């Protein structure tokens, strides 16, 4: 039985034009450069990658808050990538967003009650009394006291605001929620409670979620499946357990080795691998694999030929690396010699 995925993104591209039109020094920022993603019903897909890799741009294209340069975005089977603002409006009941900064993402001139009612108003759902009931229910589900209905966002704590943002995003019962670093701006003590609310609500309401973060412990906690992004491309995707057990792409290996781990016996606990060099500028066009310049095990082919995202070792574990083979599996980056700082810990 193959159920239709909630979201199917293929070959998504977003290039930003920057620089002056007249100056001639116009550059293109390749924020998203050919991304494929699928999210099944009720699935939480964690999208990880370092700052500037294009995660937020992917999320904002999918929510059609940014116009993609090319590619298709199928939401519940319908391609929304070229819909106009007006055509997109009715579909907004199926996808909503939670932003990173709960201070700027809520209208400072509206009360909590108004903010959570807005989606219902815009889509003309229910009578006033019904809306109030739905809003109260949603506030309660996100763990907010009904006394807060008349409060303004600035009167709330960061965690409370993020609960309001969550209630607002879920009040129409969307199929997909895009959560762009929803806990990164919060105190560590508050982060866990918000993550738990998201998980509980996901079980109750059954929405799918694209959960964007750069924090590996968060992604490990919340995701069913994980996609790793590097320089505008997905370099690896697998189920959570599989990805942490057998990271294949050299970039994923380096990323996991750098993260603190709760389980020191796991493969990634032994040695910290620190990549040399910085994330290259997304304005330059890179030939071959986007990671080759920092990759410890890169070969000539990596500089010439773009690796495709393929399920070499199995259909559910895809990686975009020439060196992953069905016989030998993934290359081990701590055995490479280039561009590497070994740091036994």
């Amino acid at each position, binding site marked *: 039985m193959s159920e239709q995925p909630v979201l199917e993104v293929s070959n998504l591209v977003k290039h930003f034009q920057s620089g002056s039109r007249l100056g001639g020094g116009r550059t293109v920022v390749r924020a998203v450069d050919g991304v494929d993603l699928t999210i099944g019903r009720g699935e939480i897909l964690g999208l990880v990658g370092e700052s500037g890799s294009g995660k937020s741009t992917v999320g904002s294209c999918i929510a059609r808050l940014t116009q993609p340069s090319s590619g298709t975005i199928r939401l519940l089977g319908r391609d929304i990538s070229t819909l106009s603002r007006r055509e997109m409006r009715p579909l907004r009941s199926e996808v*909503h967003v939670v932003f990173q*900064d709960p201070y700027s993402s809520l209208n400072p001139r509206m009360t909590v009650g108004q903010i959570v009612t*807005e989606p219902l108003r*815009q889509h003309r759902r229910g009578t006033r009394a019904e809306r109030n009931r739905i809003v109260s229910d949603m506030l309660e589900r996100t*763990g*907010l*006291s009904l006394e807060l209905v*008349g409060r303004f966002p600035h009167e709330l704590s960061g965690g409370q605001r993020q609960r309001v943002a969550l209630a607002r995003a879920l009040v129409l019962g969307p199929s997909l929620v895009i959560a762009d670093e929803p806990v990164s701006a919060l105190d560590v003590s508050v982060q866990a409670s918000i993550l738990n609310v998201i998980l509980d609500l996901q079980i109750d309401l059954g929405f799918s979620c694209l959960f964007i973060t750069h924090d590996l412990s968060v992604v490990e906690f919340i995701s069913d499946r994980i996609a790793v992004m590097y320089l505008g491309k997905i370099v690896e995707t697998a189920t959570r357990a599989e990805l942490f057990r057998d990271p294949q792409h050299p970039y994923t290996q380096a990323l996991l080795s750098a993260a603190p781990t709760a389980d020191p016996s796991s493969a990634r606990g032994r040695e910290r691998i620190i990549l040399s060099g910085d994330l290259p500028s997304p304005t330059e066009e890179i030939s071959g694999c986007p990671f080759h310049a920092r990759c410890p095990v890169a070969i000539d082919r990596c500089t010439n030929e773009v690796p495709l995202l393929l399920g070499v070792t199995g259909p559910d574990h895809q990686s975009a690396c020439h060196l992953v083979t069905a016989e030998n599996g993934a290359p081990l980056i701590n055995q490479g010699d280039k561009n590497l700082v070994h740091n036994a810990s």
Partner: protein
Amino acid sequence: MSQKMITAKPKAASSTPRPRWQRVARRFARRPMAVTGLILVVGFVLFAILGPILLTDPNQQDFTAILQTPSFAHLLGTDDLGRDVFARIANGARVSLMAGVMSTALALIIGITIGLITGFYRGWVDVVVMRIVDVMLAFPFLIFAVGLAAILGASLTNVIIALAVSQVPEVIRIARGEAMAIREQEFVSGAVADGARDGTIMFRYIAPNAMSAFIVQATVAIPAAIIGESTLSFLGLGVQPPMSSWGIMLTSAQQYLAQAPYLALFPGIAIALTALGFNLLGDGLRDVLDPKETR
């Protein structure tokens, strides 16, 4: 569905929440400057409405009593035609306040609408509108109003129109700037994700967040328009006798500055107090309408 724990703790037995306008009114009442402003503005409005009814006829000439200093018979003295200055100030208040408030209100309605739209959509409409605005702003406010009033002809309605149109470019500039800055904020993306229409975003999200800029503009513009009206009247482009305004009184008092300085003083004080009133009121409104302000 299991009942969820309510984790956010309610503020210790918070008193029954009052309607928003009551909270705003209480905060307003706690600001002596704002209250002073309100009293001044309301006072002048009442004065403009009731004065001409209760006081002597402002056009009653008495050649036996010209250029008299203030006395019990004539509280603020008499002018060169023996008319009661107090009655004339009350009478002039109607024209001055109408010209100031109506022209500013009109300019705000037109300018905010155009400015929000151009700042929100940008594109070629914005380019065209801003070219026109830049040309209009190159003329001083008064020169523009004078030119317009000369074309329209002398009447109170035309004075209001001329003053309003002359103010519009500045309001467009301010509203456009606010729209451009606020539309980049994340809560506007949130509104788009909610499914809000463009009009909703402009008038429910952007305009309320630009309110303080608009209030400040209004408190500056009303006194300026009152003075603008007096200039137009002085040039014969404003209201015609027997109608009068503070501006007309001020300018006609110039000839008697040496003999009867109070003739210029009292309308001058009226203009200054009105300007002060609107300024204080505007500052107060801006503060109490800002939900972040808690005092």
